[in-house]
């Protein structure tokens, strides 16, 4: 302690410390400033490039979707051949195809799916599933689900068991889109609580993707995990599954706790009202 005090009283340390700190602050501020400037100019360049690419992609998509030009012909064209090797172009192309797919049904959607496979954009999405970053996995899952790649289901189900909540929700939503109720049946064995936010996302996935076949939803009511039972009840109520009335009735008789019993009774009531209205 005395030594520190002596060192302190001896002014030699103070000046270098202050000068060093000032230089450090000035240096770091300059670096941050340069990074901001670099980021801004990169954003401007990228924006311009994206606009250029989007114009090319619009023509490309027009040929694929409306002119029925085979991809094999398109990729022979010198301009496209070069561009299709460009990573950023492929990224913008994938985004465009997926966004377009969201707006189309039927034959146009099938053509886009076909293009997605032929252009090997699918491989980029599949590669994303193996990435160690969860956000990249999420992106890959979203892309594959949008393009109805049912072959990826097993992979996605495995990922849905992840502890990362965002990844879990994305994977479960994708599974629901791809295979309907089968995509959530594994939740009956789920060991951890499923929070309300995840539950609402699952319900929304059913509504959004208009899942008609709800065979198996009732299995959720048999889970030992009360949050899964609550999810099952909410699904039945929100989707107005009057055909599950009997299962809800059974649950009210042997509910694992009073909260579930109360929820089951409320769902039962709502279903009965639906039945009367039907």
């Amino acid at each position, binding site marked *: 302690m005395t030594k520190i005090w002596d060192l302190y009283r001896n002014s030699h340390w103070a000046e270098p410390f*202050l000068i060093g*700190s000032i230089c450090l602050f000035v240096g770091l501020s300059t670096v941050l400033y340069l990074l901001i400037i670099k980021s801004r100019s990169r954003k401007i360049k990228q924006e311009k490039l994206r606009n250029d690419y989007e114009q090319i992609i619009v023509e490309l998509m027009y040929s694929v979707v409306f002119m029925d030009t085979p991809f094999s012909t398109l990729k022979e064209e010198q301009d496209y051949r070069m561009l299709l090797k460009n990573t950023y172009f492929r990224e913008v192309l994938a985004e465009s195809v997926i966004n377009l797919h969201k707006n189309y049904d039927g034959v146009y959607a099938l053509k886009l799916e076909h293009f997605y496979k032929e252009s090997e954009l699918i491989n980029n999405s599949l590669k994303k599933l193996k990435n160690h970053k969860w956000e990249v996995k999420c992106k890959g899952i979203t892309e594959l689900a949008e393009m109805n790649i049912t072959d990826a289901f097993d992979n996605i189900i495995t990922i849905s068991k992840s502890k990362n909540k965002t990844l879990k929700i994305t994977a479960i939503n994708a599974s629901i889109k791809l295979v309907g109720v089968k995509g959530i049946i594994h939740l009956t064995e789920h060991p951890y*609580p499923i929070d309300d936010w995840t539950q609402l996302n699952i319900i929304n996935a059913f509504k959004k993707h208009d899942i008609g076949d709800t065979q198996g939803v009732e299995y959720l009511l048999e889970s030992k995990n009360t949050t899964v039972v609550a999810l099952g009840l909410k699904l039945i109520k929100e989707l107005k599954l009057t055909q599950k009335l009997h299962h809800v009735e059974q649950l009210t008789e042997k509910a694992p706790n009073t909260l579930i019993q109360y929820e089951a009774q409320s769902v039962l009531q709502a279903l009965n009202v639906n039945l009367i209205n039907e």
Partner: protein
Amino acid sequence: MIFFNSETTWFLDVYILLILGYAILIMSSYLILAYLSTKALRSYLKKNSFVDYEVLLTSEFAPKLSLIAPAYNEGFTIEENVKSLLSLNYNNYEVIVVNDGSKDNSMEILISTYDLVLTEFKVDLKIETKKIRGIYTSKNTAFKKLIVVDKENGGKADALNVGLNIAHNPYVVCIDVDCILDKDALLKLAKPFLESHGKRIIATGGVVRIANQCVIRNGRLVEINIPDVLLPRIQVLEYLRAFLLGRMAWGRLDGLLLISGAFGAFDKEIALLSGGYSTKTVGEDMELVVRMRRYMVENKLPYSVSYIPDPLCWTEAPEDFKIFKKQRSRWMRGTIETLTLHKKMFLNPKYKLLGMLSIPYWTFFEFLAPAIEFTGLIITLLFIFFGFINWHFFLLLVLFVYTFAVFFSVIALFSEEFTYHKYPKQTDFFKLLLAAFIEPVYFHPLTVYAALIGYKEKVMGTKGWGEMTRKGFTKKE
């Protein structure tokens, strides 16, 4: 004669050591908080890019919210402000406007614009408030979400308590009626209430930003600009520093003490059990959060306070020094009152992080900082007077503090650039950069002065808010 030589007295050595130690401590704490904030912000933004808020918009299971908007002499803008509150992206909510005995024509405007009629309304007086003159609802079904309460003047806290008494829904969102809310503000604020399992989310706070000189149309922010006037411009930077580099970190540590009175959501049951807003302090927003947290700890209930870093609420900052001084001195009084009311928590391990870190941090770096700075200034003047000063060292010390302040502002700009990027115009960026250089020599002394006035007002026993006139948003079109 000088610092650090053998002739310097023991007192001077200790003084310099303490001041330097304090400066290093405060700077380090800022940097640690900035680091934690940046990490938390990156993680939040990554997660948020996969969030579909439509889930809440279409579900009957979305949390039911009651918006409470106290209004006092807001006649000039109330029509438009209420309209914007009624058109937010959310389904399960009601809007409670509490007219706190306005002296202007606010009530008449509300009645005529929204076809209001006096309604029989049974109020459960869970919290004692000033007398309610009448409760109004609309004849027009388009405004069925709206409830207007006309009451005797009792201050903002009292008006909010009336809202708490009247609210039908389990969550209340307390806002300043003149704030501009992002269209999705309620969706983002409600989500955390659904996310926690095992821990009860008792409050959610959002980020407030400065809207001076921004373009507002139909109660919505349509163009973001940086103010030309220096005082609000520096406040833009100040808010970026506070919200992006400070509160985000406290949110991550779950040690957040303050949810801005301009925009925050609360679990109504816990707010009522804790006694509602205190009318004894002008810092009712901070005081309620501390009291709710205290209630949860003392009752051994697991809980958390959530924080949303998205800019959801835009407010008008004072443009002239007189109003600015009033606002900041009030903030200081609020801080003193809250810390005094809850002094039991100070360094009390029973309150865990709250008692051992959050409260001491606020005490030393928010409450005491202006006093310490002022004392430093007086002592420096005495040193100059008595010829003790080593000018070379003194200038280095000033440069040390100045360069740190600029550096910290640049970190805030960097963080903003790589996250929300709300100021894409080059001119706006350079305006903010210039503000970073001016802030330590112009704005900071003003905040210290205003805080000292706050101390004085507290000692003199000043109560209440004082008249806070607002200029209104400049519609630069």
